[in-house]
């Protein structure tokens, strides 16, 4: 996993509340294989981005020239609610998005972002709202995220502090793989299993 430390990138405002993962990637694309040469970027926000004929909808934010290369999204509450599909994170990552700033996230999607080295940043609702206004006023402007310092800075240099679980922060900074982190505890796991299944043999 690629470590996440700091990121300065164009940020795009996503004004819809409760963006579900079906919106981020419709179910019909989940059967697609993801390989180094064919990623999930064509499916990102597919039905919001393209009309019935497959033409870009000019009013959708990521179709506008200033936001095309967005590496950060600033969204409304409950981003990534609904289905557990990790394809939503693949579509974001493969399109170059490495961080989402929102007042709150769907629980499973939040974990999925962390697992892939993406950073979900939780900021207050009015801060997110103000940032989106700013980004709309000056399309193409950048935000900077500093994970070690736990801050987001806007174009004026105003800093907003955010909270993140220490364990998640550490894993993101080091780009650690969790299977390895679990297997460090193999001894404890095996001892647990022995006790557990001794007591409840029908579960083994």
């Amino acid at each position, binding site marked *: 996993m690629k470590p996440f430390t700091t990121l300065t990138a164009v940020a795009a405002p996503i004004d819809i509340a409760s963006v579900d993962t079906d919106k981020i990637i419709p179910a019909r694309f989940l059967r697609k294989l993801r390989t180094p040469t064919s990623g999930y970027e064509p499916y990102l926000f597919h039905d919001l981005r393209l009309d019935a004929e497959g033409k870009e909808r000019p009013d959708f934010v990521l179709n506008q020239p200033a936001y095309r290369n967005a590496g950060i999204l600033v969204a409304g509450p409950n981003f990534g609610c609904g289905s557990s599909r990790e394809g939503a994170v693949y579509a974001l990552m493969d399109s170059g998005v490495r961080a989402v700033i929102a007042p709150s996230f769907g629980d499973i999607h939040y974990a999925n972002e962390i697992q892939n080295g993406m950073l979900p940043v939780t900021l207050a609702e009015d801060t997110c709202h103000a940032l989106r206004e700013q980004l709309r006023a000056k399309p193409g402007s950048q935000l900077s995220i500093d994970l070690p310092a736990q801050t987001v800075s806007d174009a004026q240099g105003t800093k907003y502090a955010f909270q993140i679980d220490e364990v998640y922060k550490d894993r993101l900074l080091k780009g650690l793989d969790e299977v390895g982190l679990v297997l460090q505890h193999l001894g404890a796991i095996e001892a647990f*299993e022995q006790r557990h299944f001794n007591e409840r043999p029908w579960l083994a």
Partner: protein
Amino acid sequence: MSTPRTMFEKIWEPHVIVREGDQVLLYVDRNFVHEGSFHAFGALAKEGLKVRRPRQTTAVADHYAPTLNRELGLAGVADSEARDMIELLEKNTAANGVEHFGLDHPRQGIVHVIGAELGLTQPGITITCGDSHTSTHGAVGAYAFGTGASQLKQILATQCIWQKRPKTLRIVVDGALRPGVSAKDVILAIIAKIGIGGATGHVIEYAGSAIRALSMDGRMTVCNMSIEAGARAGMIAPDDTTFEYLQGRPYSPKNGDWERALVWWRTLPTDDGAAFDREVRLEGSTLEPTITWGTIPEEAAPVSAPIPEPRAMSADKRAHAEQALSYMGLTAGMPITDIKIDRAFIGTCTNGRIEDLRAAAAVLKGRKVVVPAWVSPGSSQIKRDAEAEGLDRIFTDAGFEWRASSCSSCAAMNGDTVPAGMRCASSSNRNFEGRQGKGARTHLMSPAMVAAAAVTGRITDVRTLL
């Protein structure tokens, strides 16, 4: 005296192996996989890893299973990409020695239906699946939650998951439900009240006399939709209803083990006086059949109400409601019973169980549908049971298509889509834009309400037909 504990704590604590900051390494007793789990198996193979404890994982083909031509097995899957997905699951599970219920297996069904049906889902245990509706399994008194592909890979490789302890929320529904009001109406009313993010970061315990009075099928319907309020899991204390349901199931403990399990299971319910982080109460006797009018499950209302006015909502809800009404092609203020429908669908891990089929059949008996309608039982076993009771005849006499078991039109991954612009009365759990197919419009409701809509062509209070 020891401190009173919640059922959640009684399940969580004994499964903690290691603590690190706010996170614990939690042991997973049972895991389920389906066709969508191919990313996890792929990543596992790429890292040269195998499933560490194959006996604790069960696989089933459900999301991509076709509902027609099932007697042909794989050859009956017209869509080659869907066929590849189903075959890939077969290969991945065979390579790892994981038990697999394929298309033509008598135990095939939707993963969240077969778990309890087979007795794999048991009280007191931790259960995972790479699917958000894993919360269903909590209905027997288990801690069951969905994960994405990466965490699923870790569970396959280690049988453990790092997790932060969720907060606890008790939802108490007291009072007797009135005739025509079902478990689906209870959970839709709960979500309408607390909102789609109302339980984020929490595990919900459903309690109260209305919940206790529900059958296992009804309890699974309630727990299933916990995720629609953002909860990580939902659970209901095990009692005699649970034990009677589980006894004698293929994977339930047997003989002496059953007795030992029972002693343990009876200790699981929340102690009197145990503290929850939050509590919410609803009065069951005031609930009505409830349907969704919008594009998130919280956008729901009693059938007797008009479609709410976005202008009367708080700012955060208003914008969403306006967009939802435009997508749904509806106007605020119109009676919900004026909504005409084009399709009717009964099935899914929410409402595809035998009682759901019975409730719909009771409405359909002696009546005819006026729109295309189909039913896909939650499992192949339920399909056989329903046929033994003659329910299939009631459905087909009424003009419903009687299909094979699959997720079918819930997420339409198997091709059972609702065409763009069409309005479907559906017993499923999500009314998101495009969930049943690009441009499709979904109204969530109970199976009996779907049946009522199917025979009248509009959303109808089922109580007028009983």
